[in-house]
């Protein structure tokens, strides 16, 4: 009987919650998974709304939005795709903001490379270097730009579909080196932080989608990402903040 009462209470709480709470769908670039999950979790706790996040490369998410995916907020890994969406009438000029600035890290999971990542790259002493696809991912574009300073065989470069796949290639030891987002570094791991003068800045913009039926909730989340608390979380995951630039 006790269990039954508990179940009823739970169901009632659930029902009353759904009366006021809404569920929104958000598209988020792969590199931002960790901070996004943390911030979204806090947002859900504080507002009672539900946020369903889809992660992928910015290019894929952009195409999905254009083809009618039900996203009301888009956290891109660059500024190009939000700009394009504004130009194409999917969003308003005023609904865009930079939420993070990405940092590129040269990383290896091979103990013999620890602390010598850059030296190994400079001497071409590695089997493969993994990067995200420059055509699809802003981190890939930045990596490609940076790698122009180095010489190695074209076949030494392996391309992940997005930055998470580049990470995967390194983490499984199949590629000696990889250029990944600093935010992806596993706890306690470090790599060589690429000086940000060596690649174009990875300004990551978010955008509210105009046609969304949950525009006002998405706007709350949009503003929530800009609060000092959220910005602290963003910084703690290895991003620079837009204000610093």
């Amino acid at each position, binding site marked *: 009987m006790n269990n039954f009462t508990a179940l009823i209470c739970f169901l009632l709480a659930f029902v009353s919650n759904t009366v006021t709470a809404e569920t929104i769908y958000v598209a988020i670039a792969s590199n931002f998974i960790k901070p996004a999950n943390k911030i979204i979790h806090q947002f859900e706790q504080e507002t009672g709304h539900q946020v369903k996040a889809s992660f992928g*490369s910015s*290019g*894929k998410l*952009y*195409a999905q939005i254009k083809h009618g995916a039900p996203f009301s907020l888009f956290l891109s890994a660059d500024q190009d795709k939000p700009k394009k969406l504004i130009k194409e009438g999917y969003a308003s000029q005023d609904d865009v903001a930079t939420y993070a600035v990405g940092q590129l890290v040269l990383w290896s999971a*091979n103990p013999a490379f620890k602390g010598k990542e850059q030296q190994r790259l400079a001497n071409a002493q590695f*089997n*493969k270097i*993994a990067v995200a*696809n420059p*055509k*699809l991912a802003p981190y890939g574009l930045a990596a490609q730009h940076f790698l122009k300073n180095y010489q190695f065989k074209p*076949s030494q*470069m*392996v*391309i*992940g*579909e997005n930055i998470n*796949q580049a990470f*995967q*290639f390194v983490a*499984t*030891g*199949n*590629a000696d080196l990889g250029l990944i987002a600093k935010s992806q570094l596993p706890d306690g791991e470090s790599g060589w932080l690429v000086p940000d003068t060596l690649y174009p800045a990875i300004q990551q913009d978010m955008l509210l989608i105009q046609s969304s039926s949950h525009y006002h909730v998405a706007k709350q989340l949009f503003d929530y990402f800009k609060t000092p608390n959220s910005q602290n979380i963003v910084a703690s995951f290895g991003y620079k903040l837009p204000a610093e630039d």
Partner: protein
Amino acid sequence: MLALSAHDWGAIGLTIKLATTVTVLLMLIGTPIAWWLANTQSRFKGVIGAVVALPLVLPPTVIGFYVLIAMGPSGFIGQLTNWLGIGTLAFSFWGLVIASMFYSLPFVVQPIQNAMEAIGRRPLEAAATLRASPLDQFFTVVLPLAKPGFISAMILGFAHTVGEFGVVLMIGGNIPGETQVVSVQIYEHVEALDYAQAHKLSFLMIAFSFVVLLSLYSFQGRFSNLVFHHDKQK
């Protein structure tokens, strides 16, 4: 209409090379497996049959994920290849060959096995009374009678390898001339919003697949459904 870029042509050539290599190797490995499965009374028959059929139901992500780990420096394939002095196999043509062989195995083994089972014991017993050794029986009785099964296996193995995508995406690394096959190239075109290029290659794939299946089905029709409906033979 079909003005393809050098990269696209490279991807097509590589795909054909991969599918041919995988098919030849699978025919060599798949035939004894099929023979054993068709004839054994062993209680392991179910287990081995299930392992062979696994790739039919597993998502390519599972296969890709484990192959990637297995080929890494601490995986068992990686340790073996390192010991042999050929380094690790991920992001290489031969890495794709090994992954594809696992992935396409049931498409080769099952048609051959079905064809062999359809022959039944009688022709072999008849051959045995004429003093044909087991090896003789295989080459003079089984091979000719199971020929439709072998041809189906070849076509299916080849076509299925051409159509492979998920595993290659996960272990290939998208290197032109080495691991950038047609399906991955199409994916990249689509992702980069280059729909014109994507259409050209996709159209080719549809045309190819249709021709393959058409030839397979018209071929099977001529051999009285021997391959997939062997039960009717009994």
